[in-house]
C-alpha cells in the first residue's frame, strides 16, 4: 500500500483540471481572474495558466453570459470547456445560457448537437459575504432537464467527480463549497492519476440501522457529527452522501430507508423547494407504508443569507438541527 496523499479540496480540484488538460487538448478553462499571476480568487486554478498557457486557461471580462455562451458554442464544436462562475449567486446573471441553452440544446436538436461543458462554481455561507455571495442554488440546475449536477464532499470525490464531469458528454454544474477549499478539516486522501468517480453512485459514509441521513457536500460532515452524538444515545444512523444530484442514486437511498424506516434529508440550500423536498417526496411515494415517521428536512432558513455572524450561523443548518430532526422521527 502506498502512503496516503492527503490533499486539500482546492488542490484536488486543481489536480483534476490539470490531469484533464494533460489528457485531452480539447479541454480548456475560462473564467474571471483564473490565470496567473493570481491563479483565481480562491487560487483553485493556481499554476494552470503557467503550465498550459493563456490560450487554454483564458481570463475573461466580467461577462457571465459571454463566458457560458462561449463555452456552449465551443462545446458544440467539439471542445470540453470548463467555465468558472466565481460565485454561485452570479449564476443568476447567466441563467438563460444555462437553462435555455446548455441544458436544452441536446434535446432541441434531437441529439444532433451536445454540450459537453462544466460550470464550476463556488458557493456557501459561513464567511460573512452576505446575501449575494453565499447561496447554494443547485435547485436552479436540478429543475432544468438536461443539466447534471455534482456536489462533492471529499477531496477524492472533488477530483474524481470533476474528471467525470469534464469527460461527460452533457453539461454539468459542479458545485464547490468555498468553506472547504483550504480548510484542513476537509482534507483527505486522494488517489493519484486519472481516477474518476461515477455519477449517480452514492457513498455510504457510515452504516447504521435506525435512521438514514441523506446529504451532499459539506453537510455530510455535519451528518457524521450528528450520527456520532446520536450513537451515544443508542441511535444508529446511516449516512448517505449523494455526490451527484442529477442523476441521483435513488436505489441506494430507497434500499437504506427501506431498512431503517426513517429518513432525514440535509442540505445548506434554502429548505423550501430545495432538493430535500424532492428527496422527501420520492421517499414518501416509494416507501410510504414502510415508514415509521414522516421524512424530516433540514436545510437553510427560508430567508436570504444574513450578514451578522450570529444570524448567518442561524441560517445554516447545524449539527444540533440534524440531531433534533432525527429525534422527531423517533417520537
Amino acid at each position, binding site marked *: 500500500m502506498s502512503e496516503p496523499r492527503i490533499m486539500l479540496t482546492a488542490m484536488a480540484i486543481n489536480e483534476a483540471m490539470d490531469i484533464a488538460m494533460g489528457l485531452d487538448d480539447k479541454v*480548456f478553462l475560462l473564467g474571471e481572474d483564473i490565470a496567473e499571476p493570481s491563479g483565481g480568487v480562491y487560487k483553485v486554478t493556481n499554476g494552470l495558466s503557467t503550465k498550459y498557457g493563456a*490560450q487554454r486557461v483564458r481570463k*475573461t*471580462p466580467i*461577462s*457571465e*453570459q*459571454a463566458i*457560458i*455562451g*462561449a*463555452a*456552449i*458554442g*465551443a*462545446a*458544440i*464544436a*467539439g*471542445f470540453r*470547456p470548463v467555465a468558472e462562475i466565481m460565485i454561485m449567486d452570479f449564476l443568476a446573471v447567466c441563467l*438563460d*445560457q444555462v437553462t*435555455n*441553452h446548455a441544458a436544452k*440544446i*441536446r*434535446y*432541441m*436538436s*434531437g*441529439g*444532433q*448537437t*451536445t454540450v459537453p461543458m462544466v460550470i464550476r462554481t463556488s458557493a456557501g455561507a459561513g464567511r460573512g459575504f452576505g446575501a449575494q455571495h453565499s447561496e447554494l442554488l443547485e435547485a436552479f440546475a436540478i429543475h432544468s*432537464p*438536461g443539466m*447534471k449536477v455534482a456536489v462533492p464532499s471529499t477531496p477524492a470525490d472533488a477530483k474524481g467527480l470533476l474528471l467525470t464531469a469534464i469527460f*461527460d*458528454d*452533457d453539461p454539468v454544474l459542479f458545485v464547490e463549497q468555498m468553506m472547504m477549499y483550504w480548510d484542513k478539516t476537509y482534507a483527505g486522501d486522494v488517489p493519484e492519476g486519472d481516477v474518476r468517480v461515477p*455519477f*449517480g453512485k452514492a457513498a455510504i459514509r457510515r452504516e447504521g440501522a435506525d435512521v438514514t441521513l441523506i446529504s451532499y457536500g459539506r453537510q455530510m460532515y455535519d451528518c457524521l457529527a450528528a450520527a456520532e452524538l446520536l450513537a451515544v444515545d443508542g441511535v444508529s444512523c446511516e449516512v448517505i452522501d449523494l455526490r451527484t444530484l*442529477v*442523476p*441521483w442514486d*435513488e436505489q441506494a437511498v430507497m434500499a437504506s430507508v427501506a431498512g431503517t424506516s426513517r429518513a432525514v434529508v440535509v442540505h445548506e440550500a434554502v429548505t423550501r423547494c430545495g432538493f430535500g423536498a*424532492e428527496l422527501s417526496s*420520492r421517499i414518501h411515494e416509494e416507501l410510504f407504508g414502510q415508514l415509521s415517521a414522516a421524512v424530516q428536512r433540514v436545510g437553510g432558513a427560508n430567508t436570504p443569507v444574513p450578514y451578522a455572524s450570529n444570524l448567518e450561523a442561524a441560517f445554516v443548518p447545524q449539527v444540533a438541527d440534524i440531531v433534533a430532526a432525527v429525534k422527531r422521527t423517533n417520537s
Partner: protein
Amino acid sequence: MADVQRPDAPDRDTLLRMFEIQSRIKLCDERFRMMLMSGQIQLIYYSPRGQECISAGWGVHLRPDDYVVTIYRGLHDHLAKGVPLRELWAEFLGRATGTCKGKGGPMHITHPASGLMVTTGIVGAGIPIANGFGLAAQLNGTDQVTVVNFGDGASNIGAFHEGMNLAAVWKLPVVFVCQNNLYGEHTPMSMSTGVDYISERAAAYGMPGVTVDGNDPIATWKVMGEAIARARAGGGPTLVEARTYRFFGHLMGDAMEYMPKEERKAAMAADPVVRYRVWLVDNGHASEAQLAEMEEQLTAAIDDAVEFALNSPQPELSELYTDVFGDVAMEGTTR
C-alpha cells in the same frame, strides 16, 4: 436600380446563386403563409419575407464548414446556409423526419451537417454562443467563420454587449449580422434604441461597424464579403447592420396596427427580390426564361418537401424521453 449597371457587382454565377437563395426563401415563405391561411397547417410562424437579400448576401460567401447561428425568424438563414428543404419542412411541421426529429421546431432548427448550429428563441442569446464557435475555430487553427444573425431589438439586450466585447477582446472570427427590420415585436426602433444606426455601437467595442442597405443585394454581398474575409484572415469580428423591412409583421396573424400602412405599402412595392429579378434580366445577367425555370425547379422542390413533410409521421411518444442526456434514461423515472 432596375436599369443601372453595377460595377461593384460580383460575377454572374454569384449573382444567380444569390437569386436562387432569395427565391428559395420567398417561395418557401409564400407556401408557408398560403398553407397557414388555408388552415392546412398550424404553427407559430415568423415570416422572413423582405429580408431575403441579407441571408443571400452572406450565404454565397460561406463554406459548408462555416457556422451560422440564428433566431426564431430564421427560415431565410436556414435556407441560405443550405439546410435541406425536406428536413426543414418536416421539422417546421413537427415530424419525426425533421432536422431535429420534430423535437426542436422552427424556433430551434439545427443542422450541423449544413453548419446551421443553433437557432434560439431567446432574443440576443445566440450572440455569446456564436463566440464559442469562433473560439473553437481559433483554437483549432482553422479559418472557419461564424455568422450570427439577430434583430435590431436584440441589440438592446445585455447578451449583445457582453458578446460583442468578448469577440473584440479575443479577436474572434465572428460576423455579427444585425438584420434591422425597424421593429422589435410591436415597437419601432426609434422607441427602443438610442442611436440612429446600430452599427455605431461597434465603436464602443473596438470593432468595425457598417450599415448597409439590406435590400440591395449587391451592396449587401460586398459588405458581407469584406466582413467574412476579415474574419477568415484573422482580422477579428465585424458588426454589420443590414437595413430592411418585415413585410408581415412580427408573426403570422399580427394585425400590424402599429405599422403605418403607407410605410409597409412602400416597402412591399419595393420588394427587393422582385427588384433584383428585374435588374438581372434588364442587365443581361439572366434571361427571363432562365429565372422562370429556376423558380419552377424551386417550386417543384418545395412541392416535394411539403409532401414529404405531410406524409411523415409525428415522432414516437418514446422520443419525449430521449436526448435529455447522453447516458441517463428518463423514461419512467423521476430522475
